[in-house]
C-alpha cells in the first residue's frame, strides 16, 4: 500500500463559489479521505469562460492569470467545473501555439506581477478520481454499496469536446464517469442522449432555450428508467437540478429525478452524512435516493 500524495491547487470557479455550494462542501470533505490534498489559491478570479463571447483577450487573460497563480505556487490546478476546465485547456493550447499572443498576455499579466509559462497542468475532478485515485481505491473505501440503483452518468460537453483540446475521455463513447459510478456498485448503462448539451450556455443569451435543452436530457433519463443522474459540472447540475422545477412548470412536465454530484454520491457511499456532502442543498428530490443508499448499508 503506497502513500499516494496528490496535491492540487483548488480552483472552484464562480458558479460553485457563489451558488453551487454543495459541490465545494462535498469536495472539501470527501477528497482528503482519498488522500487528495487541496491547496487554496489566493487572488484567483473568474476563469473567463463567459467572456469568450465578448472579447477573446479578456477571456484569455482571465484564464492565464489563474494558471499563472497556480504556477507561482508550484501547483497543478484541479477544476470542478467543465467550463473552467475547457477555458483553461483552450488557453493553454493557444498560448503554447501562438507565441505572439503569449507575449501580449504576459505583458498584461506583468501589470499584476504575474507571469505565465504553461508549467502547471490543469485537471478536472473526474480525471483525478478516475486516472489518479483510481476506481479500485474508491471501491475499497465504500461502506454503503449502491447495488440496485441505476444511475445516468452525465459527463457534460466541455469535458469531451473538442477532443483536440480536452482529452479526458472518448468524445463519442465516454465511460470514465460510468466506471466511477460502477465503482460504487450502482449500474450506469449508457443512454443515447448522454452526449447532448444541458443548455447552460444559453442561460445568459436565451434562458428559455436553455430550459428546452435541459428538458430533453431530463425526459430522456426518466424515460430510460434511471433512478437518478450523476453530474460533475456545476453548470449541468444547475440546469438539471436547480432548474428542474422551472422546467416542470414552464414546459408542463412532471419530472421527479434526483440529481446528484458524483462526489456527493461517493461521500454518501463512504458513510458521510447528508450535510457533510451538501446534499441538503440539492433542489431535486434526492431524499428517495438517499433512503435507498442508506438501506444498502
Amino acid at each position, binding site marked *: 500500500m503506497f502513500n499516494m500524495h496528490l496535491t492540487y491547487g483548488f480552483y472552484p470557479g464562480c458558479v460553485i463559489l457563489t451558488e453551487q455550494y454543495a459541490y465545494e462542501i462535498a469536495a472539501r470533505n470527501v477528497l482528503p479521505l482519498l488522500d487528495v490534498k487541496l491547496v487554496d489559491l489566493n487572488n484567483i478570479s473568474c476563469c473567463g469562460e463567459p467572456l469568450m463571447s465578448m472579447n477573446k483577450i479578456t477571456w484569455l487573460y482571465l484564464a492565464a492569470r489563474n494558471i499563472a497563480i497556480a504556477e507561482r505556487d508550484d501547483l497543478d490546478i484541479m477544476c470542478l467545473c467543465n467550463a473552467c476546465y475547457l477555458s483553461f485547456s483552450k488557453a493553454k493550447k493557444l498560448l503554447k501555439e501562438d507565441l505572439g499572443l503569449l507575449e501580449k498576455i504576459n505583458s498584461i499579466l506583468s501589470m499584476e506581477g504575474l507571469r505565465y509559462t504553461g508549467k502547471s497542468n490543469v485537471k478536472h475532478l473526474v480525471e483525478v478520481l478516475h486516472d489518479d485515485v483510481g476506481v479500485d481505491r474508491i471501491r475499497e473505501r465504500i461502506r454503503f454499496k449502491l447495488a440496485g440503483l441505476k444511475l445516468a452518468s452525465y459527463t457534460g460537453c466541455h469535458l469531451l469536446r473538442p477532443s483536440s483540446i480536452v482529452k479526458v475521455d472518448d*468524445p463519442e*463513447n465516454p465511460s470514465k464517469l460510468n466506471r466511477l459510478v460502477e465503482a460504487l456498485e450502482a449500474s450506469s448503462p449508457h443512454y*443515447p*442522449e448522454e452526449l447532448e448539451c444541458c443548455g447552460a450556455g444559453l442561460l445568459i443569451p436565451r434562458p428559455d432555450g436553455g430550459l428546452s435543452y435541459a428538458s430533453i436530457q431530463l425526459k430522456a433519463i426518466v424515460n430510460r428508467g434511471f433512478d437518478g443522474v450523476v453530474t460533475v459540472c456545476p453548470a449541468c447540475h444547475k440546469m438539471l437540478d436547480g432548474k428542474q422545477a422551472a422546467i416542470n412548470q414552464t414546459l408542463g412536465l412532471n419530472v421527479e429525478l434526483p440529481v446528484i454530484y458524483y462526489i456527493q454520491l461517493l461521500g454518501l457511499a463512504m458513510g458521510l452524512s447528508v450535510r457533510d456532502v451538501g446534499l441538503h442543498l440539492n433542489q431535486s428530490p434526492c431524499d428517495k435516493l438517499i433512503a435507498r443508499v442508506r438501506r444498502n448499508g
Partner: protein
Amino acid sequence: MDEYDVLVVGGGVAGLQASVDLAGIGLKVYLVEEKHALGGHAAQLYKIAPQLVDSREIVEELAGKAFRNVEIALHSNVKSIRRAGDHFMVEVEEKPKYVSWSICNGCLKCVEKCPIKTSYNSMKTITIPAIYTIPGNTPPRKPIIDAERCLYFKDRSCRICEEACPANAIDFNQKALTSMLKCKFIIVATGFNMYNPSRVGEYIYDRHPNIITGLELELMSNPAGPTKGSIVKPSSNKPPRSVAIISCVGSRSEKHLKHCCRIGCTAGLKHAYYILDKLPEAEVYILYNDMRVPGRGYEEFYRLVRDKGITLIRGIPSEIRKLSDEELSMKIYDEASSKLYRLIADLVVLEVGVEAKLGKVNIFNIPIREDGFPESISILNSIEPIPNIFVVGCAQSPLNIAESITQAQAATGRIIAKIRGKTNLH
C-alpha cells in the same frame, strides 16, 4: 535460384491482369499473394458499376487464366528485396497453411465444424472460423488455419478440423518455407484497406448490429455470401423496411482520411440499386456530401438509380443514435428543402473510405506521400516510382476496378517495351 522476368505482388484484379498478360506473351511470371485466395476486394463485390456486370465472372476469368499460365504462391509474402545489377533478389516466405492442399478436396467440412468465430477485417457481420476460406468469390476454395486464432496452437485443446476432414489433409506440423528468386521487373499491386468504421465514433458502428459497411452489404448481396444474397438486418435476419446509406464516412476529413476514396459515391448508388432490386418495398435514402460520378457511363448510372426510386438527400448526419434493438435514428439537414429532418432506418450502410496499404510495410522502399500512397514522379509517369518497380491499381491510388485493370495493362506495356529495348523513358 529461380529466375523470373516479372514478380507480381498481389493477386487482386490488377495483379491478375498483369500476370496473365505477361505470361500470355511468354514471359516468366511469379505471382505472390499474401492471402490464400485470389481476387482481392473485387472478389467480395456482387456487381461492378456502372455496367452492373457480375464481379464473379471477371474474377473467375482472370483467376482461371492465372492458374493455367502463371506460377502462383498463395499465402505468401515478400520478405525482402535488394538490387543486384539489373536484377532484383527477392526473398519470399510461404506461410504454413496447416492444410495439405494437394490432398484437400475443398469439401470445407472443417470450416463448418470449427468452433471459433471472429469478425473478418473488422466487418462485424462477416465472421470466419480459425480454419477458413476468404469470404466472397475467392478461388481456389481451400482453407488454411490461422495459428493465432486456432485453439490447437494455443493449448492443443481442439482437433475438430482434423477429425472432420475426410481426406486427412490437416497437417499441424507444416513450417514456413523461404525461398530466394531473381527477377527483372516487379509489379506491386497490393491494393488498399477499407477504413475501420469504429474510428468514426459518432456512427456507433460497434454499438448496434444494424449498422454495416458498404463491403458488408456487397457480401450480403452476393449469392456466395453469408445470407445467400438476401439483404437483411442483422438484428433479426428479416428484410429492412428503410435503409440509410451514408456517404463519405471517414473520407475527405481532416480528422480521418483526408483524401476522397473515388469509389464511395458510385458504391452508394450501386448499393441503393441492390436494395431496391431485391426489396422493392424498401425506402432507401442516400445521405451524401457531394455526388462524384465522373467517367463514361457513370452519370447515366446515377440517373438510372434515381429513376428506380431512391431518395437522395444532400446532407450528412452528425451522428447515429440507437432508437431500439432494430432501429436507428439520425438527424439530417436537407439542403434542397432547407429543413431539418429525423430519419429512422432499420439498416444503415456506411460507405467508408479507403486507406493506403503500401506505406505500412514498405518492403520496396517506394517513396510515399503524406496520404500513404506512393509518389507520382510526374504526369508522364504515375506508375513507375522506382526504375523497374511498378505500382498499379489501388496500391497506387484510390481507383475503381476498370482503372486498376487499365493501370496493370499499362505496366505490362511498359515492361514489354523495356524488354524490347524500345524505350528511353528514364
